[in-house]
C-alpha cells in the first residue's frame, strides 16, 4: 500500500533547482496548477553550488543546436531578468559585458583558436574570436594580467548573474504566479497516471517533468526513459569582497555583484562526493594568480564543491517518454545559462507539445547504440 494522497495538480515538477524552477515558473505562467517537489536541506544541489556564468562560447561542441539554444537563452536573459525583478523585486544581477577565456601560454592559445575555428565551421553565428594580450588590456582597463597571459578568446554574447539570486527569484516568481512548492518531498516511486510517492506523501498529476538533476537516472526508468548522466564534481573558491576590478567574467574567474571573486572549477569524476581537497584549492589558486596576480592578496573565505549533471556529450537532454506519455525529462549542466529559454520554451513543449525547430536533437535517443551491421 502506498503513501496517503496529499494532493493533485495539472503537472508535477520533480526538482526545485534551476531547471525545475525555471520550467515550473513558466508553466505556472500559463495558468496551470503546478506542484514543484523538492528535497530537503541536505540534497546534492547543483543549484546551490553554481558558478553563475551565462555563457555561450564553446557551448555545443558536436551539437550545433545546443550552441544556438545557448545563444537564444543568453539573448533572452536581459528581458528575463527584468521580468523577474518586476515580479519579485529580486535583482539577479545579470550583466552581459562579454566574456573572456584567458590563454596562459601559446599552447592554450592554439588549442582555443582551433576550438573556435571548429565551432565556427560547425554552424553559423558563432561569435567568439581570439584577442591578443594588448587588445585584451584595452578591453579590461586597469586589470593587471599575469606575464603568461598571451590573449583570450572573447565573445560579447557572454555574461553572468548571481545564481543564488536567480534561484530565489524563480521560486518567488513561481509562487507569485500561483505555483505550489513542496520541499522535503524526495521522490521514492512513480506510478503511471502519474502517482508520485515521496517522503511527504503521494501526489498525482496527468503530467510530470523530471528535473531532479543527478537524481534523474534513478527516476527516469520508472517512466520508461533512460537518462545516462553522471555527476561531475566542481570545486570552487570564493574570496572576501574586493573593489570592483574585473569588468567581465574571465572564464573561471568572475567577480560577483557583492565584490567577492569566484574561482572555479575542477572537473572530477568522483561519484556523489561533495568533499573539497587541498590539492584542488591550491591548483585553482595557482592558476588564478598566474592569470591575475593581484588576486594573491585577497583572502579566501570559503570553498565548496557541487556536482554537475553531465550527459555523455555534455549537451542537454530533453525528452518525452514514449511508453509513458505525459512524462518529460529535462537535464543538463547549464542550468544558469539556459534558465531564460527554459522558462520561455519548455512550457510550450510540456503543456502544448509545441517545440522549436530541431528540438528533437536533444533527445536521449542520440545515445542509442546503432544496430550492428
Amino acid at each position, binding site marked *: 500500500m502506498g503513501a496517503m494522497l496529499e494532493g493533485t495538480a495539472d503537472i508535477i515538477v520533480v526538482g*526545485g533547482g534551476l531547471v525545475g524552477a525555471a520550467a515550473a515558473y513558466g508553466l505556472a505562467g500559463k495558468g496551470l496548477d503546478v506542484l514543484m517537489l*523538492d528535497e*530537503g*536541506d*541536505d540534497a546534492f*544541489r547543483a*543549484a*546551490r553550488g553554481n558558478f553563475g556564468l551565462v555563457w555561450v562560447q*564553446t557551448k555545443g561542441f558536436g551539437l550545433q543546436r545546443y550552441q544556438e539554444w545557448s545563444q537564444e537563452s543568453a539573448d533572452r536573459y536581459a528581458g528575463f531578468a527584468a521580468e523577474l525583478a518586476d515580479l519579485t523585486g529580486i535583482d539577479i544581477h545579470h550583466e552581459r559585458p562579454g566574456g573572456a*577565456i*584567458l*590563454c*596562459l601560454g601559446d599552447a*592554450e592559445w592554439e588549442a*582555443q583558436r582551433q576550438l573556435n575555428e571548429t565551432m565556427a565551421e560547425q554552424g553559423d553565428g558563432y561569435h567568439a574570436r581570439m584577442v591578443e594580450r594588448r587588445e585584451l588590456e584595452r578591453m579590461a582597463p586597469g586589470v593587471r594580467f599575469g606575464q603568461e597571459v598571451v590573449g583570450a578568446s572573447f565573445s560579447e554574447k557572454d555574461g553572468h548573474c548571481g545564481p*543564488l539570486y536567480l*534561484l*530565489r527569484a524563480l*521560486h*518567488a516568481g513561481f*509562487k507569485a504566479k500561483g505555483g505550489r*512548492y513542496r*520541499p*522535503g518531498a524526495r521522490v521514492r516511486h512513480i506510478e503511471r497516471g502519474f502517482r508520485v510517492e515521496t517522503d511527504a506523501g503521494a501526489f498525482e498529476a496527468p503530467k510530470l517533468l523530471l528535473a531532479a538533476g543527478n537524481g534523474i537516472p534513478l527516476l527516469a526508468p520508472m517512466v520508461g526513459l533512460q537518462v545516462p548522466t553522471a555527476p561531475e564534481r566542481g570545486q570552487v*573558491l570564493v*574570496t*572576501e569582497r574586493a573593489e570592483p576590478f574585473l569588468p567581465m567574467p574571465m*572564464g*573561471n574567474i568572475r567577480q560577483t555583484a*557583492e565584490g567577492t571573486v569566484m*574561482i572555479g*572549477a*575542477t*572537473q572530477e569524476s568522483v561519484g556523489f562526493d561533495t*568533499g*573539497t*581537497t*587541498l*590539492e*584542488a*584549492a*591550491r*591548483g*585553482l*589558486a*595557482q*592558476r*588564478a*594568480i598566474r592569470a591575475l596576480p593581484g*588576486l*594573491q*592578496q*585577497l*583572502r*579566501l*573565505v*570559503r*570553498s*565548496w564543491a557541487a556536482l554537475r549533471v553531465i550527459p555523455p556529450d555534455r549537451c542537454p537532454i530533453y525528452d518525452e517518454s514514449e511508453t509513458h506519455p505525459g512524462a518529460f525529462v529535462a537535464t543538463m549542466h547549464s542550468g544558469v545559462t539556459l534558465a531564460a529559454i527554459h522558462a520561455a520554451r519548455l512550457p510550450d513543449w510540456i503543456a502544448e507539445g509545441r517545440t522549436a525547430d530541431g528540438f528533437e536533437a536533444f533527445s536521449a535517443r542520440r545515445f542509442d547504440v546503432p544496430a550492428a551491421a
Partner: protein
Amino acid sequence: MSADLAIVGAGPAGMAAAVEAAKHGLSVVVLDDQPEPGGQIYRAIERAGPRLRTILGGEYAAGEALVRDFRAAGIDYRPDSAVWRLDAGARIAYSRNGTASTLTADRVLIATGAMERPVPIPGADRPGVMGAGAAQVLLKASGLVPAGRVVLAGAGPLLLLVGCQLLDAGADVAAVLETTAGGDYLDAAPALPRALAGWRDLAKGVAMKRRLKRAGVVFRSGVGGLAATGDSVRFDGGEIACDLLLLHEGVVPQTHLSRQAGLAHRWQTEQRHWAPVVDAAGRTAEETLIVAGDAAGIAGARAAALSGRIAARTAAGKEPAELAAALARERAMRPLLDRLFPPRTALPDDEAPVCRCESITAGDIRRAVRDGAMGPNQLKAFSRAGMGPCQGRMCGLAAAEIVADERGLPVEEVGSFRIRPPVKPLTLGELASMEGEAAEAEAL
C-alpha cells in the same frame, strides 16, 4: 613534517595533553592561534602582575603551573598558528606569519576550546557592545578595565564572575541584568545540603551575587526585551545609560574544525549547542581524530585538563583509570551548574542582527524559511547568512534555532551549516605558494 600527536589549541586541554603525551614518549606538535599558551581561561598568565592576579583570583592563577610544565616539556609549540583545514588522515593545514603549510601526524587532538555564545539582541553589533568574556580577555591579556559605566546582561556563571572582577578592578558597574530567573536559585543555595556535588560553585555564586549587591550594583532577574541603543541598554520596563554593554549567554564548544573534518555532532538540548560525538577518551568515529576539553562539551578548565590527559594517555596506549575517576567527579558538578544557569530560551527579535558579516537579521531568516529554506544550508543560499569571513561562527546556532522554531522541528532535525575549509581565511597567495601537489585547473 610528521608527529605522533598534533594538538590544535594550547588551552588547558591542549597543554595538559601535550605534557602527558610527551611524558609517555610521543613526539608532539602544538598549534595555537594565540601568541602565548593558556587558552582564553589562562590567557597571558605568564605576564600577569600581582594586582591582576588578585583581581582574577585563584582559578586563574592555577593555570600557571600547567603553562610552566608545558613550556618545560620540550614540546614543538607553534604559537600564532591558525589552523584552517583538517583532513582525517591526519593532515592539518595552517598559516603562521603569512606562510601556509601542512603537517601530518598519526593522530590529531582537537582542543579548540569554547567561545561565548553570540547574543543577538537589537543593537548588539554596535561599537561599545561586547561579550562579557571579551572584556575578561582584555583584562587578562592587557590589564584593560572599562573606563565608563558598565552594564552586564544575559545569563551564566561568567556574567557574575566578570561583574565581580570588573568591580575589583575599579570599574563602574552600574547593573547586572539577568535574562533568566537563574539567579533566584542562588538565594536558596545555603539551604541545600553541603554534601551535594557542586555545592562549592553554588556558594561561590551566592557570594558573587552578594558582592555585587553590596557594591550598589542594580540587580535584576528575568529581564526581557534587551536592546542596545549605543549609549544605553533598554529592556522591558526600563532603560539604563551605559558606555559599555557586556552581553553573555554562556559558552559553547568551538566546533568549526571538528565539523569541517567531517565528524558527527550531536545537539545538546539542555545547553543548546552542538558537540562532537566522542567516547570517554575523546575518540571519534575517525581513528586518527580525537577531541578533548570544552571543544567536546562544556565542563570547565579542570575537566578540560583531565580530558586532555586522558586523551593523550589513551593515544599512547596506556590506561587512564585514575584520571577517568577524577574527571567523573569533576563532571558530576556540571548538571547542577547547567540547571542553575540554563541558557535563555527566547529566540531573537526580528530586528536582531544574527549574521553580522552579511547584515542578516532574525526577521530575514524567518522570511527565508517562509520562502522554503528547509534548513541552515538552504538558508545560506536564500539569504547569504553564514557566507562571510566568520564562516557562520556568529550566526550558526541562532540561525539553526530560528529555522527549527519556524518549522516546528527539533534543532537536530534541521541540522547545521556545512562547514567548508578554510575555517579561517587565508590569502590566495598563501594558498598558492604552499608546497605540495596541486591539481591541474582548467581554463573554463
